[in-house]
């Protein structure tokens, strides 16, 4: 889901980058309000976890690969705003040091994986909890929907490129495949395999943390973010 440089037009990159500025500004404000300085290392652990989990490529039918992100897990553990910062840092390091995702495309990749994924996943998780669904199942379903929402966003950004940016004779300037190809391809990969991996990892870690009695650590920040005491 890491869009490389050259795939999106500079204007698309600028729009997506501009969209991430208020997200990160609010995230910083929320973290300043809810995190003690000594809690910041927890964000580093979340970021490192997401970074590492994204290295586990899984095979997709048709000869491509995809990977989990850990976005919903981070949103549950750190609150969605803290998760947004942690995931953005992971994506920044991936693009700068490892060429995974473009530097110009960092705004778009952050929008998909550090904004859409954690917030949609966390929203679904919270909604299911309202219907008395258990935390483990809620987290797994949230993770599944969260990563698929991010994949859909990425496929729309990619698929719009040939429609918006092409030469007079119809050649694409950037990403060459339109929405009718990008959406099915991305969604196939994430609905069938990557989403299930994301759900399984999230559910297992939440299950383990509850079992280990560390749900306090896990939920501390999100409780605070909702203004509840725990």
């Amino acid at each position, binding site marked *: 889901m890491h869009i490389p440089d050259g795939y999106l037009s500079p204007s698309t990159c600028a729009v997506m980058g501009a969209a991430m500025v208020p997200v990160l500004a609010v995230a910083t404000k929320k973290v300043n309000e809810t995190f003690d300085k000594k*809690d910041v290392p927890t964000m580093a652990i979340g970021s490192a976890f997401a970074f590492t989990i994204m290295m586990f490529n899984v095979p997709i039918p048709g000869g491509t690969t995809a990977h989990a992100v850990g976005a919903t897990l981070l949103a549950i553990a750190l609150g969605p705003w803290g998760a947004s910062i942690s995931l953005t840092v992971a994506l920044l390091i991936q693009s700068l040091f490892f060429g995974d995702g473009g530097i110009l495309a960092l705004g778009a990749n952050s929008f998909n994986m550090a904004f859409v994924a954690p917030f949609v996943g966390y929203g679904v998780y919270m909604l299911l909890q309202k219907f008395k669904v258990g935390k483990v199942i809620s987290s797994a379903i949230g993770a599944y929907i969260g990563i698929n929402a991010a994949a859909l966003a990425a496929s729309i950004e990619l698929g719009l490129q040939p429609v918006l940016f092409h030469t007079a004779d119809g050649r694409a300037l950037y*990403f060459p495949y339109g929405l009718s190809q990008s959406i099915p391809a991305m969604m196939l990969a994430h609905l069938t395999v990557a989403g299930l991996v994301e759900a399984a990892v999230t559910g297992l870690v939440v299950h383990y943390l509850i079992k280990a009695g560390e749900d306090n650590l896990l939920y501390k920040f999100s409780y605070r973010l909702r203004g509840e005491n725990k």
Partner: protein
Amino acid sequence: MKKLLIAAIVIILLTPIGLLAPGSAWGEWGIDEIKNMVGYVPSGMKHFSDTVKALFPDYGIPGFDKNFFQQSIGYIFSAIVGIAVIAIVFFILSKMIGRQEGKNE
């Protein structure tokens, strides 16, 4: 904390499993692959690809990626480098974000 550290080391050592998946991710092809697929390299794509040369492209050590063993070493090395850089970034961030202890509590 010790458990967390052990879990982290195990996860890092297992990362080469991620190398076993064949092919590249959909929509993350190199310029050559694009040329094979659509018959030409879109001009804007050519212009903006590789804006910055990564130190360890594709989580590997350049020149040390001839076989699965070398790639695995590069992958594990990349995981360690990535995590170390993330730790440094958050060490710096901790100076700038988060509230001082004892305030507003």
